[in-house]
């Protein structure tokens, strides 16, 4: 029987790609609080060798926390055989000039506008505007059934200080894959 070299050599390709894109860590699968804690703690460990300002690391950590909990609370989970169920993605890269926090998760088509409006709003504001929006939104917010305060994107935008990039790819008629990239300048 032929050795399965061809089949496993993709791992080296994968490794090469991850190096090329300076990926610190990547996780794919269903998200939970336990996964959130693990991803945070693994990233924190790898941060200990990064020669970057503590304040910057903390911003990255905060963004990750909100982004991961956003997925936990809002990823589309269904019980049928749909391709889109529980296939969320988290990735963090460290380039020379910035950290990139990238997430992907399936959502229902009907919430696209809600997400889009939230991100477009925070992208349209400067730091002072974001601060005021956060204060006002927090005063008026209530904790939702899934345990969110509706402040995640505002906080992410404040900590990032850069614009949030996003995209929606159709999976099928009702399900879209939502990808988002948040950066923190080093």
């Amino acid at each position, binding site marked *: 029987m032929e050795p399965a070299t061809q089949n496993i050599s993709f791992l080296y390709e994968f490794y090469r790609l991850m190096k090329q894109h300076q990926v610190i860590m990547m996780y794919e699968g269903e998200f939970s*609080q336990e996964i*959130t*804690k693990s991803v*945070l*703690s693994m990233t924190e460990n790898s941060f200990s060798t990064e020669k970057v*300002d*503590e*304040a910057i690391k*903390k*911003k990255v*950590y*905060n963004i990750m*926390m*909100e982004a991961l*909990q956003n997925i*936990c609370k809002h990823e589309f989970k269904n019980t049928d055989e749909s391709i889109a169920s529980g296939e969320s993605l988290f990735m963090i890269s460290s380039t020379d000039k910035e950290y990139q926090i990238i997430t992907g998760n399936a959502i229902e088509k009907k919430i696209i506008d809600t997400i889009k409006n939230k991100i477009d709003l925070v992208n349209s504001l400067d730091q002072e505007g974001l*601060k005021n929006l*956060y*204060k006002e939104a*927090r*005063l008026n*917010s209530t*904790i939702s059934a899934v*345990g*969110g*305060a509706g*402040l*995640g994107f*505002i*906080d992410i935008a404040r*900590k990032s200080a850069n614009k949030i990039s996003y995209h929606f790819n159709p999976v099928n008629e009702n399900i879209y894959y939502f990808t988002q990239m948040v950066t923190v300048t080093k």
Partner: protein
Amino acid sequence: METINIAGTEDTPTIKFDVAAGQFLISGRSLPEDVTHFYKPVMDWLGQFSSAPKDGAKFEFKLEYFNTASSKILLDVFMKLEEISEGSGSKFSIAWHYQNSDPDMKEAGEEYAELVSVPFEFIAY
């Protein structure tokens, strides 16, 4: 009145509320999955505290990280303290600790201080 003594974990803070010992502390990380459930003992405790407030009580917050849902709950805690203070005439203070390397945590405290009448003291460590 009841004492709260909750040990911190990697996603929930240490909470020590003890009137007899004069200690009121929330410290560590706060990113619980269900903030309402986690902070219920604190809210219940504040309900009891309102009928027997301790003048001069100093509430200490020494947080490393907190998520946005916790940020909302903390505001509720501060507003409750303000309400108890204004209703009873008792004076409280809030000590907001932040790491020297963490300007965002200091700013978070300042934003709370702007919203409530209970005085804040800022302590760098």
